């Protein structure tokens, strides 16, 4: 006996151009987002010197669309934690992270933000990933500017290659 087939009802009227666009939307949104990273510099310690070097003209992070720091977490989508995080500052970092709107990414800049570095004592958090999720780690004490640029490019590749589900819900 043949089964009765239930026809799939699409919410959208079938249109070739829409079908083509929906297959490409993640790629398109990823392309747009990877070149519009607005960093929020959460700068706590000596790595700030290297962060300034990265932001300066010779290294020119504007090539990657990541040059303009936003000093409000509401307007930024890349949280750069630059330097040692102490236990006293941990609630501040968590609040800043929670205030950022989706989509958001986190970069642990330098050895201290990555793992606590050489601080193993009452004061320092051994890596910010104990508090908030981290997308990319930058090694070094402090990192060379080339390392930071490499991290930005790796993060861009990741953004370009990932799905962007907010758009999927709406479409």
């Amino acid at each position: 006996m043949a089964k009765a087939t239930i026809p799939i009802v699409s919410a959208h009227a079938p249109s070739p151009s829409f079908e083509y666009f929906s297959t490409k939307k993640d790629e398109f949104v990823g392309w747009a987002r990877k070149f519009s990273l607005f960093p929020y510099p959460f700068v706590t310690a000596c790595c700030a010197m290297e962060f300034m070097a990265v932001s300066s003209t010779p290294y020119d992070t504007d090539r990657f669309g990541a040059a303009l720091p936003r000093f409000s977490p509401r307007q930024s989508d890349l949280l750069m934690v630059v330097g040692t995080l102490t236990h006293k500052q941990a609630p501040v970092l968590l609040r800043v992270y929670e205030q950022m709107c989706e989509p958001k990414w986190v970069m642990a800049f330098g050895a201290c933000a990555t793992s606590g570095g050489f601080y193993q004592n009452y004061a320092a958090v051994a890596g910010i990933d104990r508090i908030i999720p981290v997308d990319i780690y930058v090694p070094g004490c402090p990192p060379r500017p080339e390392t930071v640029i490499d991290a930005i490019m790796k993060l861009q590749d990741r953004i370009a290659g990932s799905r962007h589900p907010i758009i999927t819900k709406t479409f």
Partner: protein
Amino acid sequence: MAAAFLDLVQRQLVLAGGDAVFSHNILVITLPPAELLGMARRLKSEFLFDLLLDVTAVDWPDRTPRFDVVYHFYSTTHLIRVRLKTRVLHRDPVVDSLTSLYGSAHFMERECHDMYGIVFRGNPDLRPILLYENFVGHPLRKDYPKLHEQPLVPYRT
């Protein structure tokens, strides 16, 4: 000039009953905690040590008066330093506050209270300055466990 002046300070203080020696070209005065405030007042008014540079402590875990409380003064007239040391007991680590003489003593005594638990009698505000509220213990004491953390934010699992 400076050496002659320090010599004068040393002679006057030895006459007054203090124990004063030279160590690495700095005059070091050791005295009981009860005489601390009077000595600081004399140093400020008679010998013009008008700048309080530092308040800190040293923990000697096996010694009977366990803590040294150490003060450094500087004279902007004579351009020399002097060090004041006093010993306090572990069960009663109390010294007189110098806030009535030096405004800079407020914050430095708070820090010393954070790190070593020295109580400065007369300091109106001994809240934590580098540590946070509800921090238990004093981290620069030798018996504070080296890896003991007191996180304010629960760790992710």
